[in-house]
């Protein structure tokens, strides 16, 4: 028994030493409040705080890198960074090319936002960000999909009349409510299996570490607190 404890202690120690590796965290930096570039030019937001916390718990050194949304998966695969932590919903489509940790954010509602309360959400032109689950949903809904590279571009498209409404994560749209007459319209739509950290399929050790840390944060309630801090008290949480 003593020997077992000793071995466990040594294993624990050596794991601590070996874990001082650097992990490059890839994000988009244009999706507040999930992730954005603050006024000092640093990555900030919910995922920054969460990512730093997870890295601290697992003894990893993390550096933050931004990358365009549309090439975020290819650049992960070619090794420019080691994780995608960019409000990326876990979908079957994406699971074909990359792995995800367990969700750190529950399946969130997506919502339509428009300047016209009677906007035609079924047959009109709906703006969505390229390569998102929302874009896929719009394409299936029968409305005309107008794709844009960033969330900002989709908002701008609605404001200048190119699109009737924008369809995106409700939390990401929320800060725009009330600006220039933009309001939520229609019903919320739950999409995806929650948001997880994307990893290369070969990086199983890293995946286990993040899964472990996320489980701990779920268990002690600190993840829910962090979600509420960024998304308000009404936000979906884990129970």
């Amino acid at each position, binding site marked *: 028994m003593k020997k077992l404890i000793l071995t466990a202690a040594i294993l624990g120690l050596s794991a601590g030493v070996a874990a001082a590796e650097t992990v490059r965290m890839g994000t988009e930096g*244009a999706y507040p409040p999930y992730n954005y570039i*603050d006024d000092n030019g640093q990555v900030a937001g919910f995922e920054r705080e969460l990512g730093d916390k997870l890295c601290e718990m697992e003894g990893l050194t993390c550096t933050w890198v931004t990358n*365009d949304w549309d*090439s975020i998966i290819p650049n992960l695969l070619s*090794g420019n960074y080691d994780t995608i932590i960019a409000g990326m919903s876990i979908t079957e489509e994406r699971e074909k*090319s990359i792995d995800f940790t367990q969700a750190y954010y529950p399946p969130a509602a997506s919502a339509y936002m428009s300047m016209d309360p009677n906007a035609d959400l079924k047959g009109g032109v709906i703006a969505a960000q390229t390569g998102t689950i929302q874009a896929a949903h719009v394409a299936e809904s029968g409305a005309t999909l107008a794709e844009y590279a960033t969330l900002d571009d989709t908002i*701008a498209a609605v404001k200048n009349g190119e699109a009737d409404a924008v369809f995106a994560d409700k939390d990401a749209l929320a800060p725009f409510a009330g600006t220039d007459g933009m309001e939520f319209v229609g019903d919320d739509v739950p999409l995806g299996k929650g948001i997880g950290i994307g990893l290369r399929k070969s990086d199983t050790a890293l995946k286990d570490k993040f899964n472990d840390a996320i489980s701990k944060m779920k268990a002690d309630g600190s993840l829910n607190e962090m979600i509420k801090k960024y998304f308000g008290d009404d936000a979906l949480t884990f129970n």
Partner: protein
Amino acid sequence: MFESCSDPSALHGLSWMLCYLTTGKHLLFYGSFGIVLILLAITAPVALIFGFGGALAARSALWPFKLIGRGYIAMVRGVPDIIFFLFVPIAMDQGLEFLKSRAVCEDTSAPVWSNNEFHVCAAAKIPLGSSPQLYHEIYGFALAVIAFSVVYGAFAANVLYGAMQAVPRAQLETAEAYGMTRAQVNRRVLIPQMWAYAIPGLSNLWMILIKATPLLFLLGIEDIVYWARELGATKSQIYAFPHPDWRLYYFLVLLVFYLLMTKLSEIVLAKINRRIAFGQATAAGEALRKAGA
């Protein structure tokens, strides 16, 4: 940056603007103009050297050189530059990391390209994953410079090759009649004279190069276009300095910057052109002679 900017929500009008324009993010934006200038300062001479090599190789009497030179020049005619800008950095990055992995990785049995992943051991990464972000940025920028130099070098090779062909054959024949070797003819007669024919084409190329610098943005480098887009985008209340969509104004600044750059270049290039044409048997040289007479 300033003490008075610590609480942006209390600011109004001009002081708000002043604080807004001096945020850390804006300083990065101003710094990115330097990136464009550095790119130009490195790419122009390197591309010229590539071009010189390409043109001389294409004119070489030895067929392997000739083949390389001609092939290099043909490349710019056949392939869109944008494909090259996207291809060269990725190919170089993976190529270098592959070679390094053969040298430093202990276990090289695992395939490098598998399941659409590019996978080398951590020690073979360039730069290492643990290196500061600055190294990664410099590396990315260096790859971009190489991509620009290869593409614009090929353009320059084409211009210089044409200019060398344009030097009157009689000049070279005279030099040969004096018993000069081929190298001496090149050095003493061909190259000094070809500039008069090359400068207009090279000037054009310089202008195109200036205007191609926003392609850095495509390579994921945080250049002026990246920052203009990022800063100009609608900023909600989550930011310290919320504002509506200001991309128009930011892009206007870029427009003015590029106009100034090209205008300045035009003035300098006109001077160089005049200097080089002096005493040459070309139309520009003839005009100078008549004006002087």
